[in-house]
């Protein structure tokens, strides 16, 4: 068993296919959709966590690539310009999973990427526009 976070980019013609259902049913992969932008007739993007048998995950990714989906590792998914950050804390107001939080006597802002679900609310909440979320 393993889990993997990937960003899927769907060409418009694939958007209408039940891709997630096929991954669940055919490849027995637990598919946790963390973020999605899917509209008919447009390029769709989805951040998913795939959990299941390592071989099956590999096979599912092969299937996705065959039908024209681009599969990328979601590693550099949230970017905070730390050198310009003033630790005001406004982003923590909307960070429900607690990936952005203030710490210590100094009340310094820290980003824990592991907790981030890439919802993107902090992008709007940062008054200095220092956060970018790519998925």
């Amino acid at each position, binding site marked *: 068993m393993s889990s993997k976070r990937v960003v899927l980019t769907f060409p418009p013609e694939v958007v209408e296919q039940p891709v997630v259902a096929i991954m669940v049913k055919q490849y027995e992969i637990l598919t946790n959709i963390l973020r999605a932008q899917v509209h008919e007739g447009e390029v769709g993007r989805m951040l998913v966590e795939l959990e299941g048998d390592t071989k099956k995950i590999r096979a599912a990714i092969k299937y996705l690539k065959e039908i024209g989906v681009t599969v990328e590792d979601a590693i550099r998914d949230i970017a905070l310009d730390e050198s310009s950050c*003033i*630790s*005001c*804390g*406004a*982003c*923590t*107001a*909307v960070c*429900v999973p607690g990936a952005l*939080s*203030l710490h210590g006597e*100094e*009340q*310094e*802002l820290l980003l824990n990427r592991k907790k981030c679900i890439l919802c993107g*609310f902090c992008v*709007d*909440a940062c*008054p*200095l*526009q220092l956060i970018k979320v790519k998925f």
Partner: protein
Amino acid sequence: MKRTVSEINEKIKRGKVVVVRADEMTEIVRQEGAREAFEKVDVVTTGTFGPMCSSGAFLNLGQSDPPIKMSRVWLNDVPVCADLAAVDIYIGATAISEKAGMNYGGGHVIQDFVDGKSIRLRATGYGTDCYPRREIETYINKETVNQAFLFNPRNAYQNYSCATNGSERALYTYMGILLPKFGNITYSSAGQLSPLLNDPYYRTVGIGTRVFLCGAEGYVAWQGTQHKPSVKRTKKGFPVEPAGSLALTGDLKKMSSRFLRGARFHRYGATLFVGVGIPVPVLDDEMASFTGVGDDELETSVFDYSEQKRSRRKLGSVTYEELRSGKVELLGKSIPTAPLSSYKVAREIAETLKSWIAKGDFFLTEPVQPLPVEGDLKVLEAGRRKGGQVVQ
């Protein structure tokens, strides 16, 4: 026992002054009492670094040839006020760009100016015998203009209410993004570090007081707009809602963007983060006790911003200690809290001012004139139409 400002300045001159940050003073007073703290400490430094919309800067651009009486002016496409003498302008922090919208505004122009960046100027005039030119386009920066000073009509608000949202949809406010169904509470005061909370009755701060303003020396010019000292206070005298405020001014060319930042609140607009630090002289036991205040003794009120009214219903009271803990119990549930002003930089401001005083680079002042200790706010009632005329 008492001590005067001139005695403190004498100590600063001789390098003998004892100066601590407001959060350090809290510890000293707790451990040793106000009397001992007074004996020990001469000056307490405060700090705050938050979004303060009522801020802006006056610039004199220098005259062109042939000269122009500017009537409309844009800096980086942000409209600024030019309804003054020919080339005097005021950049309001909340003006927004006619091209980029809310993502770039007056506050950003001011920060770019402080950073020494080149700023695109566009101005038009109506043309007069003395000012024949009708338009000009060029670039300015802090080296090319004459005077440039920040003049902020309302800074360093003495306490501020917290915001929450009882509605079904997210609200986008100057208090940040408020999640639906009381999903969060935001607050903006620096609490125990906040300048006017360390001198609740303005005994030592008044017109003419020298302060830290955005990395440079600044001065209290006047009582701030909406200065409202007659509010409910705790037994010890600390206001539990927005009370006093200060109008501050200082040389923009000497400021640093470490302590001055253009900002935007999503779907609200542009503003400016302003860094203010005020030195509070410990003149007697009472001032020692005031400056010894801690976050657990400072209260503020929570309001539901989904009520789109002038007077919102108060949902409850919370202390800054509770707010800073990250969660408060309110309305029978645990609600996450978040600040909007930087405690980290507020502390850095108090520390910087402390080092200036300790090194003999900054001397304290006595107010030229005290601030009002009484006064309430007036409201604006909309008029109504009666027979083609507006009446009150």
